[in-house]
């Protein structure tokens, strides 16, 4: 079988697989403007960023080593690492919610609106 025929058949098979994936119903659905507004007004996880950054700073717990609490230091650092990972999960949730909301807003667009980049960041 020549490479050309193989490429055509391969493309057709990929398209069938993509079709099967694309016709599946989506898992999550945000449909109303209220849900978009709720997503925008929810508490921001990233507002806790400075506390998390502080907790991950080694200098924050260094005094424990100086006072001879080496095992406590290890435990606290691993606990804080775990909290930081949970925080990252929350950030991911927040990102996915915002992305979902942006899709809904795109579907509600009244038409093409010409905007300057400067308008965006306000």
């Amino acid at each position, binding site marked *: 079988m020549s490479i050309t025929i193989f490429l055509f058949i391969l*493309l057709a098979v990929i398209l069938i697989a993509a079709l099967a994936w694309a016709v599946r119903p989506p898992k999550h659905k945000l*449909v109303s403007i209220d849900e978009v507004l709720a997503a*925008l007004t929810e508490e921001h996880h990233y507002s806790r*960023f400075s506390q998390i950054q502080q907790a991950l700073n080694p200098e924050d717990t260094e005094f424990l080593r100086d006072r001879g609490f080496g095992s406590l230091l290890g435990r606290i650092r691993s606990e804080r690492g775990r909290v930081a990972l949970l925080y990252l999960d929350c950030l991911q949730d927040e990102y996915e919610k915002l992305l979902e909301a942006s899709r809904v807003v*795109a*579907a509600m667009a*009244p038409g*093409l609106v010409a905007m300057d980049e400067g308008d*965006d*960041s306000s």
Partner: protein
Amino acid sequence: MLEALSLSNLAWALTTLTELILFAYLLRRKLFRTHPLFFAYILAAILQSALAAVTYAAWGRQSFRVWLIFWLSQLVLEGMRFAAVIEVARRILAPFSGIWALGRRVLLVATGGVLIYAAALSKDYWYSLPLNVDRGVALAVATMIVTLLLFARYYRLPIDSMDRSLCVGFCLYSCFFVINDSLLEKWVNSYLNFWNFLGVLTFLASLVIWVGAARAYAMTTSARETVPVSKELYGKLSSELNVRLHVLNEHLNQLLQSGDQRR
């Protein structure tokens, strides 16, 4: 070979019958109002079957005239299929003007790219031309539908069951046509009758999907759930989303940088 020929005739007769059933459903459910180009496509497919029957009876299967008439009618049908798919794309995306503005450009680029790809890979013998056009159009139609469905999925756009069935039917038919045409190109002589049979069979499968959708179609089932918002609200919401995503991105960058510094 004779068995394949009679089987092909049987599949052909069954397909024409299914086309007529679908046509009756399209009339009964008044789908010619909502899907005029698809209606015209099915009508053209019925007329092509009738034309093929008449020309086969008049000049026989091996005649060059029959070959020419078949491929010319096929060319018209390909054009109508393309138009019917554009109609579906329009029905799905056009109610969302912002998405439609982007979507039609993406569809145009994807479809045009595939047509160029198919033309570049095709053999340049004159007798391969109809086959190449057939395959190129089928590939472009399938690409357009898959891009359309991926687009609709990404933006969570509602698609009613009739349009979904049209997409699935057209895409499956086009993909199998590409596979079929590619195999025919390789084994052009020994495979011809079997190719005809498979071609008819795949079209029959699509017709069955469409008959099911047309049968279940109700004029009241409108899937358009999202309503457009005012320009002011849209501007406010999109700016707020942009700011939130931008801030989130900046915080993640800071986190990444502080991790690097610690290392």
